[in-house]
């Protein structure tokens, strides 16, 4: 990495890297949508979104807008899953009586299952479109 790299080349390099990680995390979470996988996916979405925002003046506007919209939908959905994961973990703590776990556990697991199915559907949609190749092209990231 040289200090004189142009901003454009640097942005392309970083965005390519972030998109590769995001694509990996999407497939990983699709295979096994556990709490850690969902968390890591959300982190990779945030990182990629931050790249889109930071380098917005260098990236095609309309494509960036569409991608951000898609990412927002995924964040909203995974947020519902994550909230249930955190709460289930809280209830699993030994200091809580089993009655509380019995009272809320099945409902939370059911709700998580519903969101998980919606998540699987969204990933299927993304994959069918080959989202990473599509976004790479749309953002003109093939330059470097």
């Amino acid at each position, binding site marked *: 990495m040289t200090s004189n*790299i142009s*901003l454009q080349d640097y942005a392309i390099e970083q965005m390519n890297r972030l998109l590769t990680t995001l694509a990996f995390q999407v497939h990983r979470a699709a295979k096994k949508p556990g709490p850690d996988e969902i968390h890591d996916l959300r982190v990779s979405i*945030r990182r990629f979104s*931050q790249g889109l925002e930071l380098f917005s003046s260098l990236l095609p506007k309309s494509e960036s807008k569409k991608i951000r919209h898609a990412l927002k939908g995924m964040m909203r959905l995974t947020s519902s899953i994550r909230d*249930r994961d*955190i*709460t289930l973990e*809280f209830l699993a703590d030994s200091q809580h009586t089993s009655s509380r776990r019995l*009272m*809320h556990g099945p409902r939370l697991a059911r709700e998580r299952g519903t969101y998980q199915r919606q998540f699987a559907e969204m990933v299927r949609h993304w994959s069918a479109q080959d989202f990473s190749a599509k976004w790479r092209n749309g953002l003109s990231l093939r330059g470097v």
Partner: protein
Amino acid sequence: MKLKPSKSASQNARELLPKMARKYFEAGRKAIEGKRPPDELHGFRLETKRFRYTLELFRPLYGPNLDRYLKGLRELQGALGKVSDYQAIQRVLSRDRELKRQIEDALKGKLKDLRHSWRAFDSEGQLKRWRTYLAGDHSKPRAKRSVGAVARKAAVRGSVKAARAR
């Protein structure tokens, strides 16, 4: 804060990041030191993530020294995350009156931890240190001292130790 395509990536980072650091510290002081409801911390938590991920985007231009700064930010993010977790639990279990008190108490504890973390992060001179570091040119490797200079320094250190022992 816009980037300037006519300047190199490194120049852009040196101009953007110190300003971002100042804004970030100001936002933190407002959000954490002020008497604000916990849900307003949510905005600052997102701000923390944005700041961290922006710094990490420029990490290749700063090198491993940046990690020392990122470490503090990660710790703060962890404390903010704990508060956020309890807020999420509160939302999901809002109908359970028995647990309500327990969650509120836990949240209070996490808010106390957060204030503690923030004070450590924003201790005397930290903002200045951040800004100076981020504005500096880290592309040039630091000049290595000659073998002679290292040996001279060791000799001086040795004689001081010997004098102390006497």
